[in-house]
């Protein structure tokens, strides 16, 4: 009685998975696009001050980052005073010379004079540490610096 056997059951047809790779690729590309590579993991509070006369940090030239600010939660044992962070570690002011030389060593020779040091300093920090950093940078002749800031009205920094 083939007439009745032909359509055997009410099974659902299998879900078409042909587009699954597309969806996966879409997600992949999406995350590739929006992901920003974090340079360093911060161990300090780092709320940058804002300014409106800013210039873009030229990424064509090499940039090294120096962070400063007071240790964030979980690192209270390092004190409440503003500290310096180089790469992933807390550092002392005297370590800057070695840091700059290490950064220079990893660059191609013709780019060395263009090395910019970006200072990412928390706005609550005081100028003592910034002055120390600048003095140390002068000693190793790394003179191009950039005070990294957010964008906004500079007068907002005043009311704390």
């Amino acid at each position: 009685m083939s007439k009745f056997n032909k359509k055997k059951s009410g099974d659902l047809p299998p879900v078409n998975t042909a587009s699954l790779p597309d969806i996966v690729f879409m997600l992949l590309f999406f995350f590739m696009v929006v992901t920003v590579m974090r340079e360093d993991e911060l161990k300090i509070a780092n709320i940058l001050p804002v300014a409106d006369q800013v210039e873009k940090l030229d990424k064509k030239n090499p940039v090294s980052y120096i962070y400063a600010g007071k240790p964030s939660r979980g690192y209270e044992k390092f004190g409440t005073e503003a500290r310096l962070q180089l790469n992933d570690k807390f550092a002392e002011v005297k370590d800057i010379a070695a840091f700059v030389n290490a950064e220079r060593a990893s660059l191609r020779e013709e780019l060395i004079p263009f090395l910019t040091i970006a200072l990412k300093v928390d706005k609550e920090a005081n100028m003592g540490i910034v002055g120390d950093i600048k003095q140390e940078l002068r000693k190793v002749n790394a003179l191009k610096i950039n005070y990294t800031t957010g964008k906004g009205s500079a007068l907002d920094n005043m009311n704390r």
Partner: protein
Amino acid sequence: MAKRSAPEVNAGSMADIAFLLLIFFLVTTTIPKDSGINRKLPPMEENEEDVIIKQKNIFTVLLNGKDQLLVEDEIMEVKKLRAAAVRFLDNNGDGSCDYCKGAKDASSSDNPDKAIISLKNERETSYGVYITVQNELVAAYNELRNRRALELGPAKGFRDMSFVEMQKNYRDAKFVGNKGNLKEVIDQIKIEFPQKLSEVQ
């Protein structure tokens, strides 16, 4: 009636939809870029000779440990700093600067080339306030340079372009226009209003 299986969904256009979304995100997402105030530190010199600068050519800005601003030994609000710096730089005391529009006050700076802003801070000054003051001083220079750019620009074919826009366009690879001329204008303005900002250690 016999039960019929549902027809298969046509998935051929799924890839198109995926690409459409992909391109949408590609276009709309921007990667944040760092920006800030560029500065050049003075080199360490072994034998520092004292250059004698007339007191009237120095505009002293002091930030004390309580984040108070002292300009020429008087307390000033940060809001007024920009205008005061512009007045000082644009003063043209000796009359040698024909593009200045200042008051020609004999007790203030001689010309923009000689005028020096000296910024001093104490260790206790907070960084946020320091950046604000830096920003205002850079703004004062930019204000004068923008004014000059609007005067010089039209002759070279850059109408209604401020100095800041000129610099941006000069760095922009997509800019259509004569970059050689643009560089000339930028360099001339930089010579006319040199940024002489000294920081006292």
